[in-house]
């Protein structure tokens, strides 16, 4: 640990930790898998922001993506649950201890097929946590079946075409109540970092749909979730910069091209305009942009929506500041006189 500094002194973050404690065990996913890049971004972001790993709780369901929490933040508690039901586990844990930083990692099978019901209810509740969908349009762990995010007309490795339209998890999140919705590409290191850091600062549910190619089962000609397809069809909405709350920001913002969103913890998301005007606080505009991109065959990436005002599920429940799980007996077991009062009412 960081308490035994080596000579020469190693690089540490603002809470004095090296990067090692932010890493996990060695990945068992395929070489080149997009999920591994996402794991690396997670390690970097939590390290760079200086977040204590043991304040984080990792959640996942079943699938290749859901294995990945073992490969980052090894000093965080992790829960690899059942297929499609990660939202329930995460909800329970966050109710028990609202001070956890919840980080869910799931896949498109987990979220858009077996778990779409739980996903939608998580969105509806605006549970404060990060929900990353490692979206490759295919079931990897069962060797290459279509998922419900596979695009119409895209083909399996065998050549079989998909004849059903996809669910767009960002559109679902936007429609039903998520307060931070973003899409990114596992190959876009800079954008994904900015999005992840903003999600860490966000108080509310963050949906991050990351197109993350499956090199083994869905990286071929005919796939719309391959590296080459993304390179040709990715349409970047804007350039993103995340400025943490603890950094002094003295750089002047050029008027007209950059807007800022202040996050709950005081951090800022700087959004630099590219070709189009896009206001990420306008939910309907975001839905419209997704619809339009779909028609054009583009994959829109960037921050689609951010809402820093909507109350979270934990606020609606009127929970105290500390974790209810560990309240002392004196606060969770009513007194003898309460029991006597209730008994008297029942006589």
């Amino acid at each position, binding site marked *: 640990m960081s308490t035994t500094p080596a000579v020469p002194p190693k690089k540490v973050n603002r809470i004095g930790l090296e990067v090692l404690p932010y890493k996990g065990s060695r990945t068992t996913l395929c070489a080149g898998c997009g999920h591994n890049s996402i794991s690396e971004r997670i390690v970097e972001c939590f390290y760079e922001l200086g977040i204590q790993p043991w304040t984080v709780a990792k959640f996942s369901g079943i699938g290749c993506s859901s294995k990945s929490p073992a490969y980052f933040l090894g000093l965080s508690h992790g829960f690899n649950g059942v297929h499609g039901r990660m939202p*329930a586990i995460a909800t329970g844990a966050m109710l028990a201890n609202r001070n956890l930083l919840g980080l869910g990692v799931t896949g498109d099978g987990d979220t858009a097929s077996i778990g779409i019901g739980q996903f939608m209810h998580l969105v509806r509740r605006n549970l404060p946590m990060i929900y990353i969908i490692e979206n490759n349009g295919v079931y990897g762990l069962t060797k290459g079946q279509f998922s419900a995010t596979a695009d119409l007309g895209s083909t399996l490795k065998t050549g079989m075409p998909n004849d059903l339209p996809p669910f767009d998890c960002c559109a679902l999140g936007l429609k039903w109540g998520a307060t931070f919705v973003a899409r990114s590409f596992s190959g876009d290191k800079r954008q994904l970092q900015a999005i992840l850091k903003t999600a860490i600062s966000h108080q509310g549910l963050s949906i991050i749909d990351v197109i993350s190619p499956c090199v083994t089962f869905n990286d071929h000609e005919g796939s719309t979730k391959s590296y080459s397809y993304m390179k040709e069809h990715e349409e970047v909405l804007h350039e993103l910069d995340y400025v943490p709350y603890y950094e002094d920001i003295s750089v002047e913002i050029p008027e007209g091209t950059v807007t800022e969103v202040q996050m709950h913890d005081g951090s800022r998301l700087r959004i630099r305009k590219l070709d189009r005007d896009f206001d990420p606080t306008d939910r309907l505009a975001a839905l419209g942009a997704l619809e339009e991109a779909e028609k054009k065959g583009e994959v829109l990436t960037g921050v689609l929506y951010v809402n820093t005002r909507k109350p979270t599920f934990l606020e609606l429940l009127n929970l105290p500041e500390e974790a209810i799980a560990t309240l002392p007996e004196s606060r969770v*077991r*009513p007194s003898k006189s309460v029991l006597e009062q209730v008994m008297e009412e029942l006589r």
Partner: protein
Amino acid sequence: MSTLEVSPSEPLTHPSDHPVVNDFSIQIATVNGSGSQTANTVLMRSIFQMGIPVSGKNMFPSNIAGLPTWFTIRASKHGYIGRRKEIDFLVAMNPETAREDVMKLDSGATVVYDEPLKLSELRSDLHFYPVPFDKLVAPVCPEAKLRKLVRNMIYDGVVAWLLSIDMDELRKALVKQFGKRKAKAADLNWGAARAGFDFAARTFTKNDPYRVERMNQTAGKIIIDGNAACALGAMFAGVTVVTWYPITPSSSLVETLIGYMKRFRHDPENGKSTYAIVQAEDELASIGMALGAGWAGARSMTATAGPGISLMSEFIGLGYYAEIPAVVFDVERVGPSTGLPTRTQQGDLLSVALCSHGDTRHPMYFPCSPEECFSMTIDAFDFAEQFQTPTFVMTDLDLGMNNWMADPFAYPDQPIRRGKVLSAEDLSKLGGFARYKDVDGDGVGYRTLPGTDHPAASYFTRGSGHNEKAQYTEREDDYIFNMDRLAHKFECMRQRVPEPVVNIVPGARIGFVAIGTSDYAVRESCDQLRNEYQIDASYLRLKAYPFTEHLVDFIRHHDRVYVVDQNRDAQLLGLMRLELDPGLLAKLRSLRYYGGLPLDARTVTDEVVKQEGK
């Protein structure tokens, strides 16, 4: 069962010279949604307030309004509060069922009925009292749209006169039922009851033998349903996360809990809730949330019925294998599938004991009374955390939804026991820990809670193969070692579960084994067997699964042991088959009832007599 001996051809018009006091059952047949529940509760409570042991059982349809409902009140000076098969006193308000209800009665029974139904034409061996309800209700309830609801209170007055129920007690019960806030409604209903009483007094000559007399058997007691008792148990157990999905007959457990938590579990200083209650999107989510919360250190629970258990089974296996505490209430109803959703059964024993795929075993508590619903719920929360496993409190619709007379609940005499949880200080002392290492020899490892402020606190929880350090493994030896430890943990539970209640009758050759609400029928049946057939029977009531040595001793001690099951497939007996020495199994006999009504003593007695060849 009637004490009258009458010839069916002779009309019953003469006064009875064999009074039957404090020992009969009243059945009230109504249409659901007509407000009869209030009238029935008031009637039951009036008898209770006169010091007479009483029970009330509601047999209702899976419907909101318009279908037949029967409510049975049993008064028993002997203290028998199980269901009685025979009906002595019928209040026939439902035109749909009135004829069939009358035809089913034993000779000598009494019928109060709505006059236009003309029921007295049906039989001449019963006591009939026709009441013109519509004529009586109009003057006491000027508002026509309320008459449907107030009408039923008239039969309370009529029955009060016929049975000599003290009208002051009835009024007291009525005021209690409506509460201070609904004084106007109480007045209106009291007027109706009074009208019924006055009508009966000036119209009828009492011919039937049934009446009540004051006793002193209910002083200090309360009336409560099992679901409310479980809810109170959960609140006093210090539950912090409650997740649920509505399903009959368990919904009222959480609904009652919500009411009590709102009153008694808010921080007096800042008004904050010291709990979270979430109505989930389905049972998969409710158990998932309960497990997530239990993993993060909450005292968590969910409540459901059989169909919910089926839906939860995958998660319950995860809870077992990943070793996460949670308390699950299963208020059993009649299955399979939707079954009879408003009837009672003990039909989930096997599916809960072995719930989920692979090798799984789950502990179950079997409360039989509101007192045990309360105390066992508190114990179940301790148990779940001590053994780090989903723990089931098995009740049924009869216990959960019917009103029971009970002793006031005792305040827990032990502090909350939260099991083996390592704090940051513990970790500093130890330097680290292995989540699934059996340090103490009881199969239970030490856990840490997420958020514990220590770099050595974390471990990875998974439903896939894991070793002592909670690391992923597919090794044969790791898997077997872990599964054997889980089996050992289950064995250790035998020393911790509540012991059975054992009543050995000296010289008895036969014995009963039963759980939960079968208790009332079995205890009464023991008396019937002794008094009517000179058969002595011992009785062991199990309070929990896994079973303890007491069960083995009990079976050894008797020639034949009747295992009472409220299900078709002898599930309790089946569980014993899985555990007991084959030599003992030959002594076991199965006694089953699965019609959906609460088990009654006569059914038990008749079956034993038949099997004993008497």
